[in-house]
């Protein structure tokens, strides 16, 4: 890279890097959402069971 007159063509690596960044963040967000939804469902069921008849 010492005598190059134009930047190296590394666009593919940049795309891969940002795919990882946004992909991992999205997976984590989905996992948070799913956990919250499942816990809310569990809470509703348990509250129904806990109510005095």
């Amino acid at each position, binding site marked *: *890279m010492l005598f190059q007159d134009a930047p190296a063509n590394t666009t593919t690596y*940049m795309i891969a890097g940002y795919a990882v*960044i946004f992909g*991992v963040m999205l997976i984590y967000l989905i996992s*948070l959402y799913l956990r919250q939804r499942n816990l809310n469902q569990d809470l*509703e069921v348990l509250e129904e069971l806990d109510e005095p008849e």
Partner: protein
Amino acid sequence: MQTKPRLLTVLDIVTVVMLLAATWMVFFYAPTEAVMGDVQRVFYFHVAAGWVGMLSFLVAAVAGVIYLIRGDRKWDTVGLSAVEIGIVFAFINIVTGSIWARPIWNTWWTWDPRLTTATVMELIYLAYLMLRQGIEDPDRRARFGAVYAIVGFLSVPLTFFSARLFRTIHPVVIGANAPGAEGQFDMTPLMLQTFLFSLLTFTFIFVDLLWHRIRVGRLADKVEQLRLKTIQ
């Protein structure tokens, strides 16, 4: 059903807008680096993700200290939430670093002091989750988790300073590069602005995610308590 605080909704919106703005700056505002080309743009979010990882582990250690002093389980939830987020962002940091290294160092991975300490740090916090899984008693789990988070935090300054203390090829942003560092570059004002804005954006992402994760943790505690009450 939990009600979502209005401030959290505002924080969600601000965080998304900031992430969009930071992404725009990375791709369209910051100039292309003269030698490395486009892959240098990975640097902005790579460093920001590393920052969030280390910040998370710091928060977990502080939460651990407060838990040991007060014995309030909510600090255990804060610690666990911070560690989980830290693991996610440290993972992003390591993988994006590896992707950047391929065209710049001509290798996906090398056992350089910085890469090694970052990996060890990630493994230490993965072990924190495994440790918690192995303890059933909630108070004992919280106590062990707190002590582990405090001791495990030693890996964070070691990772941060590894590129400054040891002979390494990993470039540093703050301070002088080691003689053998490869891939360093001089930041232009536009690059610096993009970098600083990315750090700020990721800090907002951390606070936002931490708040959401703590809410999930509290909900899990509530469900657990109700489940035990129903069984009895």
